[in-house]
């Protein structure tokens, strides 16, 4: 996927005026946050589990090398193979190599954001292997030559008409505006593809070190057909997904479904351990786990360490006012919303993604709902500092902050300035207490009024309070 993060501001402007997108985003706001709230209410231990999950992830990261080695040795013991890939390029080549070894023509795919991260589909196609997305949302996107705008609801930016149009064009069937009919069409189209594919590629939500298992969590059942029917099963996943035991995996599963879709449990939670066993009547003959790093190991022990706890539930973006207003494509790369604003600069470079950590009101809702308590605003602030220090922010921002810094370091002058500007703003606001146009702040006042400061400054109030005491 091309990186369009530098154009965030322009993307956002377009998104805000896109009637279809705004209609589609309405479905998000009405759906996930409310369902999550109900699920959380039904589980009184939910917040204690979040603490446990945070602590457990921290323990795993402290011992990440040991757990990964344990996982690898168990996969091997069960007859599978682990491939370590430092970069996207390593991962793409490894997967193509496995496909070519079995002379693969077509590959079915379960939903995987890591595969988006490494641009797998384009690469396989260029090299004569046809990838077929089987998750309904991903399938719709593939027909439209589109990319996911959300990590668990990939086609959330589309409306029924868009799906109906795409299916009509590709399936050559009468147009329908009934979602049930459209889903049935996709089911029928994909049936034969599942059965005929040479390789099945899935992601993994967790890797269990104790048993050498990978687990996928899906509602449709497409991932299960993908990993059961073809002769070769490739799991593409990343190094931070390892957990110690089945019990530890269980803790995360309880949090994941509720944080993501607000379900009590996702319909299919499936563990894959090695290839089929002697005597098994189905299942793959070959089992490969492609472990992708792609910048993650550089985060260990650094400022972004906490981000490695992320379990990709999407709660942060589901509750983000910025994501809710502009959707996922505006962010311009694979991971949108608050988690994307932290990860994208790490993976594609702050030079290209500097806009993203600024695309936040710092309302703190993302941290409030994060099942593993990642301090997302703090991590975005890290990038803002980094961007400023590298002189990457726009001139207006740099001069503004430098100007503010000049006064902030001179308290007397600062107090005088704030008294004057308060008086100025109050005068401008008049009796209604609101300002409807302000020089240099059109970006704010074009859309809403600026409330005038209502009373005395903090310092004035403080001095008065101290005076009253004595």
């Amino acid at each position, binding site marked *: 996927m091309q990186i369009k993060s530098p154009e965030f501001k322009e993307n956002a402007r377009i998104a805000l005026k896109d009637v279809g997108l705004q209609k589609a985003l309405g*479905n*998000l706001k009405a*759906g996930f946050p409310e369902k999550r709230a109900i699920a959380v209410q039904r589980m009184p*231990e939910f917040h*204690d589990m979040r603490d*446990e999950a945070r602590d457990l992830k921290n323990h795993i990261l*402290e011992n990440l*090398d*040991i757990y990964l080695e344990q996982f690898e040795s168990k996969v091997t013991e069960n007859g599978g193979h682990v491939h*370590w890939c*430092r970069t996207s390029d390593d991962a793409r080549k490894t997967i193509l190599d496995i496909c070519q070894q079995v002379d693969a023509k077509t590959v079915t795919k379960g939903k995987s954001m890591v595969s988006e991260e490494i641009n797998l589909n384009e690469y396989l196609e260029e090299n004569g292997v046809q990838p077929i997305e*089987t998750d*309904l949302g991903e399938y719709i996107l593939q027909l439209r030559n589109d990319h996911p705008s959300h990590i668990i*609801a*990939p*086609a*959330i930016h589309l409306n*029924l008409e868009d799906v109906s149009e795409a299916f009509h064009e590709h399936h050559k069937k009468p147009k329908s505006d009934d979602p*049930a009919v459209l889903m049935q069409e*996709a*089911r029928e189209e*994909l049936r034969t593809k599942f*059965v005929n594919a040479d390789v099945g590629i899935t992601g993994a939500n967790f890797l269990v070190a*104790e*048993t050498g*298992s990978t687990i996928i969590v899906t509602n*449709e*059942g*497409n991932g*299960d*057909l993908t990993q*059961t*029917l073809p002769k070769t099963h490739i799991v593409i996943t990343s*190094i931070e997904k390892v957990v110690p*035991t*089945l*019990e*530890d995996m*269980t*803790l995360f599963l*309880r949090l994941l479904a509720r944080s993501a879709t607000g379900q*009590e*449990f996702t*319909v*299919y*939670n*499936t563990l*894959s*351990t090695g290839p*089929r*066993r002697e*005597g*098994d*009547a*189905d*299942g793959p003959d070959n089992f490969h786990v492609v472990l992708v*790093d792609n910048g993650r*190991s*550089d985060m*260990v022990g650094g400022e972004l360490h906490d981000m490695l706890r992320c379990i990709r539930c999407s709660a942060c973006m589901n509750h983000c006012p910025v994501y809710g207003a502009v959707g996922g494509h505006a962010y311009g790369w694979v991971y949108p919303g608050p988690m994307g604003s932290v990860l994208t600069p790490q993976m594609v470079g702050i030079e290209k993604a500097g806009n993203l950590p600024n695309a936040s009101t710092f309302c703190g809702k993302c941290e409030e709902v994060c099942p593993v308590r990642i301090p997302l605003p703090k991590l975005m602030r890290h990038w803002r500092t980094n961007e400023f220090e590298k002189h990457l922010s726009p001139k207006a921002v740099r001069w503004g902050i430098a100007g503010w810094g000049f006064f902030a370091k001179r308290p007397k002058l600062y107090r005088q300035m704030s008294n004057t500007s308060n008086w100025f703003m109050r005068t401008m606001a008049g009796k209604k207490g609101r300002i409807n146009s302000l020089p240099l702040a059109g970006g704010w006042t074009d859309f809403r009024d600026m409330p005038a400061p209502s009373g005395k400054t903090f310092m004035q109030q403080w001095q008065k309070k101290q005076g009253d005491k004595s």
Partner: protein
Amino acid sequence: MSKAEIMGNIRRGLRRGEANEAQRAAVHNRLNAKANNLVPKRAQLPHAEQVALFKSMALEAAAEIIELSEHSEVPQAVADWLHVNQIKELVSASDAVLNEMDWSPLGDIQRVERVAQAGDMASLTTTFAGIAETGTLMLHSRGESPTTLNFLPDIHLAILHRSTIVGPYEDAWKMIREAFGNKLPRTINMVTGPSRSADIEQKLQMGAHGPRTLVILLIND
């Protein structure tokens, strides 16, 4: 090559070299302890209440439940269900417990033992456990019970014994370890209701790629 680089990076980040004996031992002790994390109170109930919870959670997840008082009633119940739904063929797992049943109630409905194929209407399998916490079935792959039976047909009929219903997932993992030790079967499925998707406008539709209908034959033995 990549592995050494990744491991080196991780260790550099952790400000240490290769883990020492004590660190490894701590990790292995944790792996061997297989200790529970917080188990929700909801799942810690007397068995009768677990069964009730299982039923209400499975129904909430849109599974159908047919209650039977003993094993031998399965063929008749299956036959009745298939007749009502006008289904002529049943693809079945071949576990001994199934083969020993008297299938004459099926009449002209064919019962075949094989892996599932595209176009199959209905399958029948046993289950390993039921998990009350969320109304979840646990199944695993083996020669007698191919995994495709759980996913390809339109309808999945699954036999569950009341005695194998546990409260939390953790208790099912204990049963798995008792049965398989450290080497798990190729596939372990946890299934909670029939297949669904909300990928079109966030409106939930049942029957995406897996079974549209999940029927649990609950035997109250």
